C-alpha cells in the first residue's frame, strides 16, 4: 500500500507521459516495479486513472477539425438537477466534453465536427430544440495556443550556453 504522496507522484508522472514503462516509473518514483504495477492497477480500479490520450495538433496533421464550445442556459430537471441534462448531452458522439459551470451560463459543451456548418447544424438541430434549453451561444475555436498544459507550436530549442 503506497502513501498518498507516492500515489500523487505517480499520477503526476502518468498525467504528463502515459508512455513510460512501469520500470521507468519505478526508477522515477523510487518505488519497485511491482509496487508501480499494483498501484496503477488499483488506481484504475478505483476510477482514479480513467484513461489516457495522446494530444495531437490536427492543424499540423493536415486534418480539418472544427471544435466549438456551446454555452447553454438550461432549466434544471425536477429531481435530477443538471445531471440528466449532462447525460443527454454526452450521448452524442460529436460531444467531446460536458461541464457544469458557475457564472453566466449553466452547461458548457465541447463539440467537434469536420466543418463549421456541420457543427453549427448540430447545435441548431440537436441542442437548440431540447425543451430544457433556455438559450445557447456557440463559439468556434479558431486557434489553439495551449491545451492541457501543452503549448502548441512552441520552438523547443535549448539556448543555454556553456559559460565556464
Amino acid at each position, binding site marked *: 500500500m503506497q502513501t498518498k504522496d507516492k500515489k500523487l507522484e505517480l499520477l503526476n508522472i502518468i498525467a504528463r507521459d502515459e508512455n513510460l514503462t512501469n520500470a521507468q516509473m519505478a*526508477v522515477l518514483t523510487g518505488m519497485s516495479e511491482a509496487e508501480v504495477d499494483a498501484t496503477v492497477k488499483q488506481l484504475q480500479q478505483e476510477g482514479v486513472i480513467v484513461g489516457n490520450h495522446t494530444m495531437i495538433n490536427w492543424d499540423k496533421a493536415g486534418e480539418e477539425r472544427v471544435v466549438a464550445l456551446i454555452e447553454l442556459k438550461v432549466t434544471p430537471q425536477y429531481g435530477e438537477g443538471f445531471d440528466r441534462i449532462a447525460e443527454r448531452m454526452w450521448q452524442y458522439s460529436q460531444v467531446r466534453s460536458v461541464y457544469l459551470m458557475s457564472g453566466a451560463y449553466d452547461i458548457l459543451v465541447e463539440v467537434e465536427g469536420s466543418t463549421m456548418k456541420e457543427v453549427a447544424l448540430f447545435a441548431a438541430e440537436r441542442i437548440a430544440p431540447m425543451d430544457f434549453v433556455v438559450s445557447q451561444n456557440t463559439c468556434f475555436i479558431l486557434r489553439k495556443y495551449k491545451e492541457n498544459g501543452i503549448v502548441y507550436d512552441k520552438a523547443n530549442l*535549448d539556448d543555454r550556453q556553456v559559460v*565556464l
Partner: protein
Amino acid sequence: MSFNIEKTLNSTVVNIPPSGIRRFFDIASTMEDVVSLGVGEPDFVTPWHIREAGILSLEKGHTHYTANAGLMELRTEIAKYMKRRFDLDYDPKTQVMVSVGGSEAIDAAIRCLVTSGDEVIIPEPAFVCYRPIVQMCGGVPVTIDLREEDQFRLTAQQLRDAITPRTKLLILPFPNNPTGGIMDRQDLEEIAQVLEETNVVVLSDELYAELTYGGKHVSIANISGMSERTVVINGLSKAFAMTGWRIGFACGPEALVKQMIKVHQFGIMSAPTTAQYAAIEALRSGDKDIENMRKEYDMRRRYILDGFNKLGLTCFEPKGAFYVFPCIRSTGLSSEEFCTKLLEEQHVAVVPGNAFGVSGEGFVRASYAYSIKNIEKALDRIERFIKK
C-alpha cells in the same frame, strides 16, 4: 619601437589556463544532433510571476542604480529567506550584500581576505572559479583531493592536514558541483572542531542549497561558533532558475561585508535593478516554485543514477545539486579520452571530471538539468559507446 600589447599583460592572468569545460562545447557546437548533458544551469525558464515582476519594474520606470549593497527591500527579503529556509540570522542593513550572481560575491570575498602568500584551501573536485581568483589575488591555492569512498565529502582529518600557519581561507563548496556531494550536520561539526583552533575564515558556497534530496541543507554557519567566521554565498540562479538575471548575495560578519561592498561598489556599482525587483518577488512568493523544480530534479536524479549504474559506470548517490559524477575507469579511458570519444562517436557531451581538479580524473560530470527524454537518449548512446 613597435608596441606589443602581449608584453604588457599581467602574467598572473595570462598564466591562468582557460576553463576545461569550454573546450568540449566549442567542439560540440560544430556538430549536428548533439545530445548534451553538459550545461550547468536549470533547463526551467524563470517562473512567470517572477519575470512579470521584472517587467512591472520596467513599466514603473525603475531604471536607475540601486544602493550599492542592493535594494533595502531585497536585502530584507534575503534576510527573511535565510532565516526561513536555513535558520540563519543576518541584519539586512549590515550583513547582506546583493551581487551580480554568486560568482561576483565569491570574487569580492576572496579579494577582501586574501593577500600575497596567503593559503586558501580548496577541496576538489569543485567549481572552477576559486583557484584563478585566489591566484589573481596573489594567494596560494592548496588543494584537498576529495575521495569517492568519502562520497566526496571533506573530512576533518584532511582539513587538519592541510592547515598551516599561512592558511587564511577555507572554501566549502557544498552541495557540490560537479560531484553532487553534500556535507551533513555531523560532517560540518567535525570541520568546525578543526577550525575552532585556528583563524581560518570560511567561504561557504551554497548556491545549490535548495537542491538537496532526502534531507535539508545545513550551512556551516548553523554550527555553533562558525557564523562569525563564515561568509555564506547564495543566489537565485539555481533555486529559482534565474541564471540570466545575475542575482547572488553574500551574508556574513559585518566587518567583512562592509569591505566586500567596497569592492563591489568600485567594480560593479550595483546589481541590475530589474533583476533585483524580480528577485524580491522570487524570495517573497517563490518557495512553491523551488519545491516543484526540486521534485522534478529528484525524479531525473533517480533516473540518470539508475541509468549510469546499470551501464556499469558506477556512481555514488549524489544528494545535492543537479549533477551525477559516474566513474568511468572501467572503460580503461581517461576522463578526457572518454569525453572526446563519446562526443566524436555518439555525439553526447559530458564534462571530464579532471576539469574540476586532478581528483576528478576517472570521472565525468553529467548534468540532469535536462528532460527525461533527453537523458534517456543520452544514456542509450552512452550504452552504444561502451558496448562498442
